[in-house]
């Protein structure tokens, strides 16, 4: 990593970090800076690799109902469809079949529910939600899985999970465009943090051994 990039990174990282802390942790910060730099280099610009343009428009419309745009950005602004597309061409190749079979099913369902229309993306928002509800089996997905493993059940469930992944993954890895997903949930996009972290530890006066016990006596 060259000096300019390093300085840029540390400037970005520097907000809220004290000079003493930065200097004490300098080697670790450099290492983190190198990671961020390498990850940024690895991110690829959006281009369709798996979906046809028509499929991409349909999938984007679905993601936009799963995580909609309101007064804050949603899946559309996060470029989730590009992330899913790249995923299906690379790390999610096992899931291609579910999409190949699921998209025509979706098309058919749109035709059944709204005979005059054929495309999901052509429906009004309420109609889109009605179609998605008809697919959502509300499977009893374990609320606290140790790991983020899609159960690979239905097309809907897979798309739901892929959309969440594309919206919330660290932006350095190709999704969550411009970090909008993290802005929505309030996660700062830094590689390092210094205490205090939140409201409740800000006023903490330090560890007091057994103060309560002493008071009681």
């Amino acid at each position: 990593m060259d000096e300019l990039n390093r300085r840029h990174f540390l400037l970005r990282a520097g907000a809220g970090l004290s000079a003493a802390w930065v200097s004490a942790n300098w080697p670790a910060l450099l290492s983190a800076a190198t990671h961020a730099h390498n990850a940024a280099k690895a991110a690829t610009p959006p281009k369709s690799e798996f979906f046809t343009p028509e499929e991409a428009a349909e999938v984007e419309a679905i993601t936009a109902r799963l995580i909609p745009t309101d007064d804050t950005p949603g899946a559309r602004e996060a470029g989730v469809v590009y992330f899913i597309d790249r995923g299906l061409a690379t790390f999610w190749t096992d899931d291609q079949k579910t999409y190949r079979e699921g998209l025509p099913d979706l098309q058919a369902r749109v035709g059944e529910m709204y005979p005059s229309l054929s495309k999901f993306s052509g429906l009004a928002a309420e109609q889109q939600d009605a179609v998605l509800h008809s697919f959502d089996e509300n499977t009893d997905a374990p609320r606290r899985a140790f790991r983020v493993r899609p159960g690979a059940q239905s097309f809907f469930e897979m798309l739901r999970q892929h959309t969440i992944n594309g919206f919330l993954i660290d932006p350095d890895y190709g999704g969550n465009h411009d970090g909008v997903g993290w802005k929505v949930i309030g996660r700062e996009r830094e590689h390092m943090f210094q205490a205090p972290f939140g409201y409740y530890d800000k006023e903490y006066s330090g560890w007091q051994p057994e103060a309560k016990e002493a008071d009681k006596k």
Partner: protein
Amino acid sequence: MTVDQPKYKTSDEVDFVVVGSGAAGGIIAKELSTNGFRVVVLEQGPYLTEADFNHNEIETLALDKLTNHPKLQPNTFRKTPSEKAKPQRALVYGRCVGGTSVHFTANFWRFHEIDFVERSKVGAVAGTGLMDWPITYADLEPYYTKVEWEIGVSGLAGASPFDPPRSKPYPMPPLPVKSSGVIFERAARKLGWHPFPAPMAILSQARAGRSACINCGFCLSFGCEVGAKSSSLATAIRMAERTGRCEIRPNSYVHRIETDANGRATGAVYFDEKRNTHLQKAKAVIVCANGAETPRLLLLSANKQFPNGLANSSGIVGKYLMLNSGGVVIGQFEHPLNDYKGFAVSRVMHDFYELDPQKVGFYGGGGLDARFDFTPISFAFGGLPPETPRWGKDFKAALAQDFNRTMEIFCHGTSLPLENNSFSLDPDLKDAWGLPALRLTYTDHPDDLKLGNWMFARAHEIFDAAGAQKKWSFPAREQQFAVHLLGTCRMGKDPKTSVINSDHQTHDVKNLFLCDGSSLVTSGRGQPTMTIEALAFRAADRITELAKGGEIST
């Protein structure tokens, strides 16, 4: 690799071959090579280093970059031995140099005196194999101290009135407190309990050429990219390499221990990356492959002389598996905690470490900790209140509202050792190398579930005392997925009820040693790695003494 290692030939009879490079294998390799022995460590996973670790949740969590892979290494599960097991992912462990210590939470409590003598103290528990250890806390104390000072543990000695005696303070102060820790500490003290700064195997200060934690927030399940987490990779493995006598050989999948006509181990047979088979010859074999793979390797090594598997004259290899009971209660608060910053845990409580079965009506005990171990994606799947819609406007609003205001109280508890709970070889399913897959058989003892629910109730009391806006949990459920892999080749004096003696030597094969989670006799209260590492330091001392006294080679 940071330094030049020796390259031993497989035909060289080295002093020790160590199977597995995790919490135990790393330390044993480091100790034995430091003591002058020639050591080869065979690790089934790749040699990843800090430069390979990142914050990619998909790669790390879903695609198993650091862990056993369900496609290559499928498993089966059943509740009882009378059922036919069904294919399902049944366990996770670290599959890389450093093993599970690379991605663990790094909660590093010592076991207490009670854990070693519980059978004597509470008496027999009908239908279980609960028994005392052949060693006591006092035997292990010097080695706990070694772990703290040589591997690197942050903490505050004397902060918990329930702590067992210690010979030395921690080598460095605790990590900073998080908002979850402050909330937990204030509320628990209000209730008259004794929370204390969490002992963590993460550096709070730069030490031994390693960086202090920079609070990046991708800790549990991830490898530490600055080497602040005290994994075997960041510590013992590097020290072993520096001796110039230890070779770490990654991508080496050991599937048989060879024995000779005299019933002695002669070496370990493994597949290399290209699936060629080799026999690494050694004077003694030490298996540290974890509480699932260690018994599996012994069972895979069955031959004419040892028809039930190696070191299995007792018939209990793989049995008495304990997974630790417990679970999580989640709470939400008014103001931002921003608990995604930093490591997971900053406060722990041991008031319920020893519960009186006469009073509570069940066996067991546990610890509680204040944490946030979610990442953004895992939070969206597991951190929201159960009634939250799973998609759409209200789902998004909940994510935005809750991510920064949520914390967890994790309840960690005992599991009783039951003979039916086990890892064994599946009779049908094979792994990608054509070897029998791991089969998990498990049904929690009713007391383990009662304990879980009892601790959840205490966690709810803490959230109430803290003024949480919302809190929830689910009743303790029977487990079907293993993370802590304990007790499957347990230590004991009697060869009929244990697999290894207190020197970690198998009762049946004098130059075969086992050390990892499988060695544990009781489950402790949910944080086993510290004890596995202390056992490893002690085992290395014992093995060194036996080797120098000529008791292994004859």
